[in-house]
């Protein structure tokens, strides 16, 4: 019996899961505390969960550069995971900052909301740090289940229900494919540990011709492509983003997307590096398809939240270019891009949170007429985020795009890069159109000065700082992104 314990303990390395551990602890603690917290407000929960996030962040930062492995290669808290974890934390933190205001406005001041976000974040971290298919899979599920709940969080709102339900059904469906893929890979290699799989595949060249490997690879990818929202697995995105509570949309568009990229990258690089030609060929097509679908459909959107959803599809496409490039620059480009995207997109959604009225019927282009004059600060902020999404210097978006395209061009995918830039040219149109309404139209109704809750403003300001910091002096962060590549 005791030898069993020894066997168990010798693999245990708490440092490898410390961040997610802290986060989950805070989550569970919060669940308990909620019982005693006054109903009808969630302020305290906000601060507690923020503290949790900050603490976690602190531990991640301090652990930078000392990769931790443990649990018998089930998890590896290396720079790669750390970098992504930081992204998740930013996404979570910023969306939590804007949540309180939002929940109160929409009439659902339910504190369970925050633990859910924290759990989702933890799940994302496990995805990023998992080196065993089981860890990744379970992390994915923790994240997804939490997100199903959060997407459908406003029980009384039909759109929220619908978002939750669609997300759930499709998510579960894609899980089926993911699992089947994992099963086949397991069958081919006899292991679920990424490294072992990789070594095994590399050692037995014959396997590369084995159709089962390829089938596994594809079915596996689908699970992640679904979460990334790459065409043709993107169709849930607009509906869910539109229906879900805005802060959750913000979080979903940044955190889970990044998590999926993290897991996808890790699996592709650890397991299938010997199959690179095959999967880059596929991803090339998908990247192009995704960019085109996202950008083109976004043009005819009138609801800004939905438009941003399509734009996030497009951005997934840009990021995929980095994977197609499949060289160091491309990969670290993805890391950097995800961070940049977190700032600009979450920031944009934060503005929407303040711009929206109850039920968010006014988040249409028309509703934004003269917005820049009604709410000068928000107007400028949104403009900045949109320019960053366009990829105009000196903003994070530009630095990110540059990084990724540089990777693609270095790898010789000139035409992919050209298609990419042409797509961002198309995207200019719909971003600009928002600004047309914000500044080139006069306000529809007369407006009074509206006081802005500090928390949301803070998140916006942080996002702005992030956008410009990553845009003007991206050197350091790019360096980190470089170090984060395995």
């Amino acid at each position: 019996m005791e030898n069993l314990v020894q066997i168990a303990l010798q693999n245990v390395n708490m440092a490898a899961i410390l961040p997610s551990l802290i986060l989950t602890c805070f989550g569970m603690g919060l669940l308990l505390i909620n019982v005693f917290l006054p109903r009808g407000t969630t302020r305290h929960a906000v601060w507690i969960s923020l503290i949790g996030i900050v603490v976690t962040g602190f531990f991640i930062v301090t652990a930078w550069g000392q990769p931790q492995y443990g649990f018998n290669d089930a998890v590896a808290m290396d720079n790669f995971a750390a970098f992504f974890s930081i992204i998740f934390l930013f996404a979570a933190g910023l969306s939590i900052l804007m949540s309180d205001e939002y929940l109160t406005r929409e009439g659902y001041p339910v504190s369970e909301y925050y633990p859910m976000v924290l759990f989702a974040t933890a799940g994302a971290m496990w995805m990023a740090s998992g080196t065993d298919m089981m860890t990744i899979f379970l992390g994915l599920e923790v994240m997804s289940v939490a997100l199903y709940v959060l997407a459908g969080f406003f029980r009384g709102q039909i759109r929220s229900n619908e978002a939750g339900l669609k997300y759930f059904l499709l998510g579960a469906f894609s899980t089926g494919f993911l699992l089947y893929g994992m099963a086949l890979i397991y069958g081919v290699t006899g292991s679920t540990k990424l490294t072992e799989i990789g070594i095994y595949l590399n050692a037995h060249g014959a396997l590369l011709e084995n159709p089962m490997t390829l089938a596994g690879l594809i079915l596996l990818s689908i699970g992640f492509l679904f979460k990334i929202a790459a065409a043709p697995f993107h169709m849930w995105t607009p509906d869910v983003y539109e229906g879900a509570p805005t802060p959750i949309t913000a979080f979903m568009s940044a955190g889970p997307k990044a998590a999926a990229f993290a897991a996808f990258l890790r699996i592709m690089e650890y397991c299938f590096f010997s199959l690179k030609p095959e999967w880059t060929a596929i991803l090339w097509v998908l990247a192009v398809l995704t960019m085109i679908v996202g950008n083109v459909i976004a043009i005819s959107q009138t609801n800004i939240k939905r438009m941003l959803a399509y734009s996030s599809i497009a951005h997934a496409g840009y990021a995929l270019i980095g994977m197609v490039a499949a060289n160091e620059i491309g990969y670290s480009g993805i890391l950097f891009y995800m961070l940049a995207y977190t700032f600009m997109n979450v920031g944009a959604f934060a503005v929407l949170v303040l711009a929206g009225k109850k039920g968010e019927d006014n988040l249409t282009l028309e509703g934004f007429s003269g917005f820049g004059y009604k709410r000068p600060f928000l107007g400028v902020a949104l403009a900045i985020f949109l320019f960053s999404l366009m990829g105009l210097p000196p903003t994070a978006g530009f630095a990110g795009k540059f990084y990724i395209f540089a990777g693609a061009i270095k790898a010789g995918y000139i035409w992919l890069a050209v298609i990419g830039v042409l797509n961002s040219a198309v995207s200019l149109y719909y971003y600009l159109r928002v600004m047309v309404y914000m500044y080139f139209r006069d306000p529809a109704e007369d407006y009074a000065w509206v006081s802005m809750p500090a928390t949301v403003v803070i998140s916006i300001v942080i996002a702005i700082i992030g956008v410009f910091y990553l845009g003007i002096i991206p050197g350091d962060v790019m360096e980190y992104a470089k170090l984060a590549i395995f």
Partner: protein
Amino acid sequence: MYDKLWLIPFFPLLGSIINGLLGKRFIKNEKVIGAIGTGAVFLSFLVSCKYFFQLLGDSVKTHESVVASWMSVGNLQVDWGFLLDPLSALMIMVVCGVGSLIHLYSIGYMHGDEGYYRFFSYLNLFVFSMLMLVLGNNALVMFVGWEGVGLCSYLLIGFYIEKQSAGDAAKKAFVMNRVGDFGFLLGLFTIFWTFGSKHGVWTINFVEISEQAHLLSGDTVLGLGVTTVATLCFFLGATGKSAQLPLYTWLPDAMEGPTPVSALIHAATMVTAGVYMIGRMNVLFAMSPTTMAVVAMVGALTAIFAASIGFAQNDIKRVLAYSTVSQLGFMFMAMGVGAFTAGVFHLMTHAFFKACLFLGSGSVIHAMHHALHHAHLDDDPQDMRNMGGLRKKLPVTHITFAVSCLAIAGIPGLSGFFSKDEILWYTFASTRGMLIVWIIGAIAAAMTAFYMFRCLYMTFYGQQKTDPKAKDHVHESPWVITLPLVVLAFLATVGGYVGVPEALGGHNQIHHFMEPVFGHAQEVYHIAVKEAMHHNPIEYVLMALSVVLALIGIGVASVMYMKNPDLPAKFTAKFAKLHRWVFNKWYVDEAYDALFVETTKKLGIFCWRGFDVKVIDGIVNGLARVVGACSSALRHTQTGLFQNYALTMVLGTVVMVAIFILN
């Protein structure tokens, strides 16, 4: 020393600036303004005299003085430099002399005009530009003057800004000049480039060009000799500036300007720039017989063509305008047959008598205008049909006008005779001469005599057709107006005696004076009177013939307009069609409008509405529309139905697998 040459153009410029900037606000007083304007020109006249006589006494006949460098880009070095040689010396004398007289005249003529200061400013500016043109030591400085005079004529033709016709005329003048300038530039480029690239001589300096010209003899461009191409281009410039076929139509319209302007710019000086330019580049022209022939023919045709139109004009100034065109034709004939001196000689004499004629007409118009104005009539004060019998009212004007008429008609003893006769002689006798040119010239001379006297008679003789109410108000003009008339009439009389041909026992001083400019080219390229013609009695025959022709012209005129004034009406009735054509100037303007103006406008409209808007923007917006269409089409694939999404996913999977199998 000649380093103060820049003073000559400087004074008028100064005057122009002073009047232009201070005239309206500060000086105001007409007397002062007039004094400044006239004084400036007179000063430069004095300086010109100094240099002229200095040059006469000087053994070296070519002097350059460089003031400053203008552009220096690699091998292109352009200076602000002046060149004084007999040719330019003569020209500055004419320009400043006639110029100052006309300024004086304008003081009276423009009296009371609210644009008084503007007028003198422009006029000075013109004199400045003209002097730059004449004195420039390289083609570019000349071009500055060349365009400058164009600008001033634009400003002065459009001086009465209120008049629509004035504006049109001004624009027409400038644009047509531009067409000429286009030619000038091309010629300049050709010369500069061939010199430079073929012979390493990067220059546009006149002296160097004339010295190095022989290098070009071998070179060709587009299969033609470089000199031919270049000189043809230059000649195009000349036709624009000097109102030759086909670019002459602006000059008659230019009469919209005040009369002194017509006198100075459109008779005496500017329009002769073309002639001067050919003289300046005589070596190049001499090298290309083809061009010379073209020049001569164009000159001849212009001479007779314009004269023919002069027959049927009733506006006194227009008659003079066409006669100017015709006389310029004579000058070009001279240039074309290599009689450069003769051309310049005629240029000078023409400046005298034509200026006198214009000022005379101006005096008439001035008088008529006052009279009509006084009687509150709005008849056209320029229409000769309202005049007649003015000789008693305007004695001085009448005399001077008559003298000038005799001069231009080529009556022996007056300046016109000598110059015109020399031209005709050369067209006949020069090695480059052509009989046809001589014939045309002779006929044109006769016609000149006719229409000039027609003009004279209609204006000053017969009974006064002026509206009785206005009759008694017609008075002779003040001295500032009559004095220049007298002086010019005097010059028109005696001006010819500097060029009395040897045949008549003269010494033809002007010929010797111009020797250093033209002699070189003439001897190198064998341009001279044919051997056979030396001391040939035929010269006297021709002289007599031309006199006879002139007398015939005068005679016909007096028959038609003095003896029995109803004859013209009969004629017009008899040759109605012909008359209509002549009266409407052979419909040349209309033709030009239809050919060039309208087509250009149509083209412009097409480019704009047709191409810019429809094609280019059409493509651009079309692209946008296509993308939009795709967007709204794709958008509807997003049905919102769970199962469509799931289906898409599955199909996507299948497709990916398929791709894999294919790989």
